């Protein structure tokens, strides 16, 4: 059982509360409470800093105990440094580095204290004491090295051969075997959290929709829920249903694309080509809903912008049936091809313990047998009434990650079909009013990559003082690095595809 120590205030997702009601600890106290929570089976959902004008930094920690559906939050005020617990709780290491980089605080005792995105801090202080007159370049700095006569280093990126986002991968290899992989990101940093400060304004929703372009619905759901909670707006069941249908369509499109890409990386052409086309079919279904293949413009704070009429419903059901049979054929082809299975099985294995230790989320966590799914553990909207069974598999390899996606495809299709055939009545909602001042709200959504967490904190006027976004990729990149240990370097692209993490979602 996962339980939260008393130092954390019990909160509910999508329920705003005055920020001052969060328990205030000192740096040591917060670290001790987080360490205890993690030992008791909870995990970090979000952990970030808010620089205050008086020079202090307020650290806010949001933790989840999934088996008890509990969410908790606590805060601490620190001055120049805060204690690191990453040595005992590896899942916090990237969060601590992020706080250090954004707020210019030293993370004391951090085992691998490096920048995350290679940016200047918001406060003018620098945790690494770098010269303010010199530029900070992503990926420049020390990397973990394995020394030895026969060890060699392979550096890949930031410019890749495929049309993908930039990231730098440093392999320490012994022949074909990978001893260690270190991933340096930050090339895609656009300043999302900085741009959201002082909002919401007319730009805010556009920024949210493009935090990770392939997860438009996921991030926009979390954002809309945050605004609705802060404004005290109620949504109709019809709105919730349309949002859930859009979220599942996004999952269908991306899971199909991923399965095709996994087949493509093994050189198995038929599934790769078919899935490329079927992914387009699912995207086009989102276009039937919203007029946009990625669902931009569909979700708006307070409701949805487009209704599903009878014509759209019939059209969607028809297309869903066709796409379901196509995707089943394409994926069965891959499962029945022993040469593909030989590549997927036992490649990039992660154990359940490693997944817990690293705090993985989404299909990557579920592929190790960990039943971790926001739709089940912290449901909101229509998911409170219409459950989707959590799809897990236990081998933790590339095959498991592919198979979890395949299981989720079937469940999402069934879910959409059920929701479409019983669309509740209700209004599409109205724009939200002003936001509650000095308030705090956490919202969660299960995007196709995993848990999306947004935390909004408003100032005296009800504007965002801090808007914290945690994309599932932020939790999962270290999982990819770990999965590569002891693997062949030639299997890296396949492992990478099986995680398919977002660079821009991480870099913000």
């Amino acid at each position, binding site marked *: 059982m996962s339980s939260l120590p008393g130092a954390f205030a019990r909160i509910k997702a999508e329920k705003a509360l005055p920020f001052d009601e969060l328990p205030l600890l000192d740096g040591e106290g917060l670290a001790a409470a987080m360490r205890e929570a993690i030992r008791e089976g909870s995990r970090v959902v979000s952990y970030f800093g808010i620089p205050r004008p008086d020079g202090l930094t307020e650290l806010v920690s949001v933790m989840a105990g999934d088996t008890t559906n509990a969410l908790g939050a606590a805060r601490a005020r620190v001055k120049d440094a805060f204690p690191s617990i990453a040595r005992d709780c590896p899942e916090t290491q990237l969060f601590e580095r992020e706080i250090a980089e954004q707020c210019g605080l030293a993370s004391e005792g951090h085992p691998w204290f490096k920048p995350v995105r290679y940016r200047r801090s918001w406060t003018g202080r620098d945790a690494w004491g770098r010269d303010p007159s010199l530029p900070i370049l992503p990926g420049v700095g020390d990397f973990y090295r394995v020394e030895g006569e026969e060890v060699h280093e392979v550096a890949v990126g930031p410019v890749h051969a495929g049309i993908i986002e930039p990231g730098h991968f440093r392999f320490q290899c012994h022949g*074909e075997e990978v001893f260690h992989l270190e991933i340096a990101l930050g090339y895609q940093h656009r300043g999302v959290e900085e741009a959201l400060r002082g909002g919401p304004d007319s730009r805010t929703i556009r920024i949210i929709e493009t935090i990770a372009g392939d997860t438009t619905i996921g991030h926009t759901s979390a954002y809309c829920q945050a605004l609705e909670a802060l404004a005290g707006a109620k949504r109709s069941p019809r709105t919730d249903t349309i949002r859930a249908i859009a979220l599942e369509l996004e999952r269908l499109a991306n899971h199909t694309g991923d399965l095709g890409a996994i087949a493509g990386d093994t*050189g198995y*052409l*038929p599934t*790769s080509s*078919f899935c490329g086309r079927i992914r387009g079919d699912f995207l086009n279904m989102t276009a039937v809903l919203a007029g946009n293949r990625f669902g931009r413009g569909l979700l708006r704070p307070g409701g949805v912008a487009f209704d599903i009429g009878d014509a759209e419903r019939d059209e969607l059901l028809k297309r869903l049936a066709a796409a379901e049979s196509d995707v089943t054929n394409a994926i069965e082809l891959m499962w029945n091809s022993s040469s593909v299975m030989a*590549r997927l099985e036992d490649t990039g294995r992660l154990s359940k313990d490693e997944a817990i230790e690293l705090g993985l989320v989404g299909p990557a966590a579920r592929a190790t047998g960990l039943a971790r799914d926001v739709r089940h553990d912290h449901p909101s909207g229509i998911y409170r009434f219409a459950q989707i069974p959590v799809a897990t598999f236990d081998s933790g390899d590339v095959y498991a990650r592919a198979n979890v996606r395949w299981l989720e495809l079937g469940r999402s299709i069934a879910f959409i079909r059920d929701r479409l055939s019983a669309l509740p009545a209700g209004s599409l909602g109205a724009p939200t009013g002003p936001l509650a001042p000095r308030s705090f709200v956490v919202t969660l959504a299960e995007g196709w990559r995993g848990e999306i967490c947004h935390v909004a904190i408003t100032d005296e006027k009800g504007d965002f003082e801090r808007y914290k976004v945690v994309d599932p990729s932020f939790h999962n990149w270290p999982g990819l690095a770990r999965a590569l240990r002891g693997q062949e370097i030639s299997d890296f692209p396949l492992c990478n595809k099986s995680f398919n993490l977002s660079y821009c979602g991480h870099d913000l």
Partner: protein
Amino acid sequence: MIDTIVRFLLLLAFPPIMLGIVNRVKSVFAGRKGPPILQTWRDIAKLARKGLVVSSTTTWVFLAGPAVSLATVLIAGSLVPYGPFRSPFGFTGDVILFAYLFGLARFFTTSAALDTGSAFEGMGASREVTFAFLTEPALFLALLTLARLSGSLDLNGILLGPAGGFSSATAAPLVLVALALGIVVLAECSRIPVDDPNTHLELTMIHEVMVLDHSGPLFGVITWAASIKFFVLSTILLHVLLPMSSGNAAIDWLIFVAGLVAVSVGVGVIESIMARFRMRRVPWFLTGALLCSGSAFVLLVR
């Protein structure tokens, strides 16, 4: 005379078309229309018109790589008989020259790769020579088996077989030799399941990663030379699979070209219906080729 002219026209012009056929077959399996059959020729023509980027860290070895590989495959291609048509250049022991021409090409290709000093290309070169360590003896033993069967020591004699054709008593070693040669074709021409010629993932490549730094005309030469290698090895395979002669030159040429098309289609089908092996498994597959041709030889000398 006409036969010799046809030989050289085929050797120069047909190989890229074979790659076009492979790609077209793969497209059909994937439900796509696919590129034109002549696309590889178009690519070579496009590359020939492009500029050339040569890293300042490289030496003449970098330029010699593509030149030597083209020269060696052209010489190798002129040594082998095509269908029933004998090579005009055959001499006793040319089989040794033939085998070492591939070795020479490999030496220069891998040297050119190492010359760039890139970690990728070194990785590719290491993979290339590791796998060649298994395919070269497989090819050698296959040729040796055929030499033993035909009692000849020049390629014309070895590949055209004994005067009355191979006897049915030698079917078992011939099947093994055909299997070994089939695997050698796939491995040497960097096809699936050994290598993936279409991938853009440099970490998984074997052959392609060695030539990442070659551009423009040099890369065109590499593409052309690779296709000629495919043509030459397919020709050898055809001598075992399709050892027939009608006596009519025109029909024989047609049979020969049809055979090449059939090999290309076969390679395309294999690439479409199976995935690549994991890198660690590739040596097992190649050892299979070595065991096939080795067993064929043992069957004959017992």
